[in-house]
């Protein structure tokens, strides 16, 4: 009969509207987010709120997420594993990476590692070519900046690496 579908639709929306006040998480009054990290959200078919209060609550990224590049340290010596071989700079399709080094042969040392974030396409080819377990993609995704040319230097990349707590390349692929 005509109109039954309309009634069903009205009933569905009002059911969802009322149940948001009773089911799932309720956002505590003075705060608008859960202080203990993201509250558990429901499945898409479920009822109840599933708004994530973004700046305060954040989703945990999946392991193979490709964020900004980071440098890894050798856990024994505490120094960056990078040997300044330049394979990553060669592999990069956009010329994002610039390796600055001093000396030749065995004396070659890394001085700076410039990573132009504004041009990076997050393809992970640099990480795949690295033979020294020195770089990996991090889970950093809040990369907006006021500058057009946002260049991250070695210290920044090491800082991201320290923050991530990762010491092995390809950890998520094993």
């Amino acid at each position, binding site marked *: 009969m*005509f*109109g039954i579908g309309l009634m069903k639709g009205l009933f569905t929306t009002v059911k969802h509207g009322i149940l948001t006040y009773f089911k799932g998480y309720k956002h505590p009054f003075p705060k608008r987010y859960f202080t203990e990290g993201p509250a558990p959200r429901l499945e898409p078919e479920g009822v109840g709120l599933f708004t994530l209060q973004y700046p305060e609550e954040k989703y945990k990224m999946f392991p193979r997420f490709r964020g900004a590049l980071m440098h890894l340290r050798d856990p024994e010596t505490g120094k960056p594993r990078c040997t300044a071989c330049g394979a990553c700079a060669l592999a990069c399709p956009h010329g994002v990476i610039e390796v600055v080094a001093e000396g030749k042969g065995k004396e070659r040392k890394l001085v700076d590692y410039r990573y132009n974030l504004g041009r990076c396409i997050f393809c992970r080819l640099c990480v795949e070519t690295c033979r020294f377990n020195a770089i990996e993609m991090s889970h950093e995704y809040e990369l907006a900046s006021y500058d057009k040319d946002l260049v991250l230097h070695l210290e920044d990349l090491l800082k991201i690496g320290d923050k991530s707590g990762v010491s092995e390349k390809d950890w998520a692929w094993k």
Partner: protein
Amino acid sequence: MDLESIFPRLQEIIAQWLSSFLPGWLAELLVILMVVLAIVLMMVVVVMVLTLLERKILGRLQDRIGPNRVGPYGVIQPVADTLKLLFKEDIVPEKADKLLHLLAPIIIVVPALMVWAVMPFGKKLVAADLNIAVLYVIALGSVTSIAILMAGWGSGNKYSLLGGFRAVAQLFSYEVPMGLAVLSVVMAAGSMSLQSIVKAQSPLPFAFVQPIAFLIYFICGVAEVNRSPFDLPEAESEIIAGYHIEYTGVKFAMFFLAEYINTFAVSAMVVTLFLGGWKGPILPSYVWFFIKVAIVVYVFFWLRASFPRLRIDQLLNFAWKFLVPLGMVNLLVTGIVVKLNVPVWLTVPAYWAGNFVIGVIALYLLTRFTPKKTPVSLR
């Protein structure tokens, strides 16, 4: 002092105080202006509350929270929105018809505010109890379509022109069944004054005496104020924003204001004509009026959250091929009941019988002739 006459008493006190030191005509004029100002300010506050309520209720119906950043639970959000709109740059397109582009936002607000002159807020709260109030309200409803067409044409933009065309087609089509639905109420009440219509709904409100007229009026009311599912003139996914696409800042705020005032006005008309107006036990009459209007507005938001937009041909077919004949038959039944001079205790059952027969036939026709186009995979 009883709560019922608190506002008329206040007006009397101010009038007496003013006439103590001003000439009589000036005091009277000032009192009239005061009433106008009170209504206009009330409407602005109502619009601010409605925008917040719409976003909160719509959010909840879609499992979201809605605005909750500005102030506790987002209650100051409308103030922030208003400030943003007031400080925005006013842009007039190069190809616009400058005069029409400027006049349209002014013309659209004026009739939206004028409707409130005849609206009975309470037993003793009505600015002007016209004896042709219903006609006045319907006439002002048509002025809106002129302003919308002016905005659509004057912007010099094809999307806004399409929106204007759609708005005119829709508003004119839906005014016909709306008028027919109102006429059956007017015939049953025997008066065109809104106060008398409210008083005529003594044992039962007209929504329960004439459910079909109520449904027709409600559907046409939703279409009249361009709300979803009848929001074709401003359909975002098809013509971006329709007739107000080229408006910014204060001019856009005017359209926004008019739209929400009209929504509130149509809800108030539904309440006055069909739901017993300000009638209700215990609480003062104006409180009852606002409670009933709030419920009708909630249903408007609820419809917006539930139904997808209609196509333009579906919309016009529904008006001309279904609502107009239905309204005419309903009017015929009402006329027969009024003309037969049935005894008072039999009028309501007579209306019920008539409405039941029409309703069953209409439902049968709708079920029989609605094409079933739902793809098998979506069923």
